[in-house]
């Protein structure tokens, strides 16, 4: 297990290097000077100044080396259009917001999705199968913004649906976020903590629908496959209770496939959900990437794309390792 872990970790290094390289050259494929792409109306002098400040006037190879040197110092440059803040500062404020929302959505999606899939697989083609699976079908099919508006109309009377904390309440408590994980920042103050929790509820619920549905369908499918195998029939023939067969024998073997799907969904969630963030005014990473892309904000786009790629790499790493933990055959080979 330990050598496997070490091996996987070593593979991470060239992967990350590759990602940064690809992103670096990809954003430069446009052929237009980045400064000109951002400010099509600016005069030559301004363009020259922006290019000089970012080193964009130097040859590509020199830029490439300089970019790694700056990256090592955590310097991702400054956004020019979106906010004029350093990109690292933007990400430090926005990524925690995205992580918090993604984790909350996963916390809803994983248990409910798993349970729905197991219930459906336990009695295929019965009411307990059709019910959850119809809901899951709806879950993957409905556009998120539509669901979000529906949720606001249904629950907006009782639950807040914009932002992460009531701004007036925050002012009255002289509160300002430090880590930008709102649930952590408000820990010492019950009134604020409760308010932050309430703000989290609706967006997390809406965001969880797709992963929940995908997990439910995957759980059902892979469980049904495992349940058709010979050793399950043997277990049943031995007189094991069907619950024990399902939970102990079948589920464990169905888990690697389910873990892959959970991992993938986790990656998508952490990449930021533009629509959900936008409707609930969440101001996470997704909105930032979207705004950077729209205004051709080079530094912002480059920094956040690298971060998102890293997220996927790390999530994949965790999924890989969980395979080994779930399936001894992988550990041995």
């Amino acid at each position, binding site marked *: 297990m330990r050598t496997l872990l070490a091996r996987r970790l070593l593979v991470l290094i060239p992967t990350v290097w590759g990602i940064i390289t690809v992103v670096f050259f990809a954003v430069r494929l446009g052929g237009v000077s980045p400064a000109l792409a951002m400010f*099509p*109306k*600016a*005069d030559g*002098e*301004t363009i020259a*100044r*922006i290019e000089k*400040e970012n080193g964009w006037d130097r040859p590509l190879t020199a830029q490439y080396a300089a970019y790694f040197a700056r990256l090592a110092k955590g310097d991702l440059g*400054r956004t*020019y259009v*979106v*906010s*004029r*803040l350093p990109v690292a*500062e*933007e990400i430090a*404020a*926005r990524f925690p917001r995205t992580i918090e929302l993604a984790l909350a959505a996963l916390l809803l999606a994983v248990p409910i999705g798993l349970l729905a899939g197991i219930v459906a697989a336990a009695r295929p*083609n019965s009411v307990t*199968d*059709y019910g959850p*699976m*119809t809901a899951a*079908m*709806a879950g993957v*099919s409905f556009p998120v913004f*539509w669901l979000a*508006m529906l949720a*606001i109309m249904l629950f*907006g*009377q009782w639950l*807040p*649906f*914009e*932002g*992460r904390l*009531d*701004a*007036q309440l925050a*002012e*009255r408590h002289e509160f*300002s*976020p430090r880590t930008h994980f709102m649930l952590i920042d408000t820990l010492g103050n019950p009134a604020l903590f409760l308010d932050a929790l309430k703000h989290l509820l609706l967006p997390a619920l809406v965001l969880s629908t797709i992963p929940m549905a995908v997990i439910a369908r995957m759980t059902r499918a892979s469980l049904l496959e495992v349940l058709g195998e010979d050793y399950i029939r043997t277990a049943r023939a031995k007189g094991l209770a069907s619950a024990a067969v399902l939970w102990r024998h079948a589920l464990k073997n169905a888990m690697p496939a389910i873990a892959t799907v959970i991992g993938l969904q986790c990656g998508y969630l952490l990449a930021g959900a533009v629509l959900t963030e*936008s*409707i*609930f*005014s969440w*101001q996470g990473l997704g*909105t*930032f990437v979207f705004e950077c892309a*729209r*205004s051709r904000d080079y530094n912002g786009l480059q920094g956040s794309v690298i971060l998102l790629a890293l997220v996927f790499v790390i999530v994949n790493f965790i999924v890989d390792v969980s395979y080994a933990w779930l399936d001894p055959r992988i550990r041995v080979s």
Partner: protein
Amino acid sequence: MKSRWMSAVWMCVILAAMLAGCGGETPPSETPGDGAALSPRLQKARALLDSAGLKTPLRLTLYQMTNPRPYLPKPQETALLIQSQLSRIGIEVEIVENDWPTHRSKTSKGEHDMCLLGWSTDNGDIDNFVSTFYSKNNAVPPSALNVAFYVNDKAEDLLTRGRQTADEAARAVIYKELQELVAHDVPLVPLMHTQAYCAHGKRVQGFQLHPMDLHRFHRADAPAGDGGLKIVSFGRGADSISLDPAVIDDGESVKAVIHLYDTLVRFADDSMNIEPGLAERWDVADEGRTFTFHLRQGVLFHDGTPFDAAAAQYNLQRLKDGLDVPAQVKRSPYAFLYEGIASIETPDAATVVVKLAASDVTFLKNLAMFPASIASPAAVRKDAENYGRAPVGTGPFRFKSWEPGVKVVLEKNPEYWHGAPNIDRLIFEHSKESKVRVRNLLKGGYDMIDGIPLEDLQAIRDSTDVTLISQPGMNVCYLALNTQGKNGTQYAAVRQAIALAIDRAQLNQGAYDGQGVPAYSAVPPTVAGYHAAPAMLESD
């Protein structure tokens, strides 16, 4: 297999329900298509078009932006209506859609035959409209605002004279002549003026929307909540970008900036009149070329440094020349308004003398605009790069905090020279989706919002908990016709024909929900010097 069927049936039911809820209305068409008799107005347009002797059907491009603007809430619908209106007189319109920055950059280079564009005033003066649209100085690619590329010596002469004439009656005569001239030449077809809207809840008292659509909270009040603080929160569509007045040109930054700073002279609370600001009084000499400002004494910046003549001089110089600004900014996007300043002198600590190269009656109005805000020189010099995130002015509110992307918080300046504000805290929150923002206002989540979608106006009018404020916006939406185009718009007869074929009433119904004000001049009726030329009025 059965489960698939069941879910498919469900999906159909739900889809049908969704579709039933969003059936669009098609605006009534004034004249039927080909074959039917044309109205006399359209017959005249047709005759004008024929007189140009061009190959028919005439094919023209219409450039249109995808992003709604305050003066153009539904760009797609507007472009489609114009396309169908022009087809009645035999013009085939090809619509070219671009996002806002691309639209601006392409149209300012003159790629279009026709394009949709609009303007909201900076200072409420008629010159701010007509110079923008008709001056050859603004027709220089790649940053042209005169996207008709209209160059006319007579118009240029009228513009210069209008700028140098102080007498209101004499000015009106000059601008009447100009508006008659362009109604005949038709470099652009004025389409619509819109209303400016904002809405607030019951907690906000004594709020008055300034005619220039400025949300000023200096005089407003609100009841104190738990903890005794009077807090007002404002939901708007984007976060501020910077709070450095010499850097910005986005409305959401301006909203906060006008509370943080003062200007030497200011717009009155309820009109476009100029009244004393940081300058107590001023003398004009030298045929309107020399302004001597006598400054208010004892005013302190929020950082405790004193406001004096040197501070005023520094800020005007900074605005004009781009002194101590962040690396990516050369100078204020509004610097062109202050280019006429020849010198700024400070004979003593309480006096500033500004000399202009030529007399300009819009100068005081420009000085009352936000770019001419007076910032603490010490604070700017300390860290020009990041000054926009730690602003220091003399205004009624001080900067308190800024959560990037989320909200800007200002707090009361108890020592304000013009009387301390009633409100303790003013919060500007970022609320991305306009429909959600309206819901949150109705729920009481915000005290005030702007950027209200037309289709939500009724819900706000119907609610007893919120008040809708609307007033004529000082803006115009227009169809610019490229006078230096190559496909027909270079001929005055073609442009006149287009102007006649435009049906504003239909545009208003189809693309403005009937809430627009048809425009017969590029100058809004609320601006002094407005004149609707008969040539334009004829079209309706």
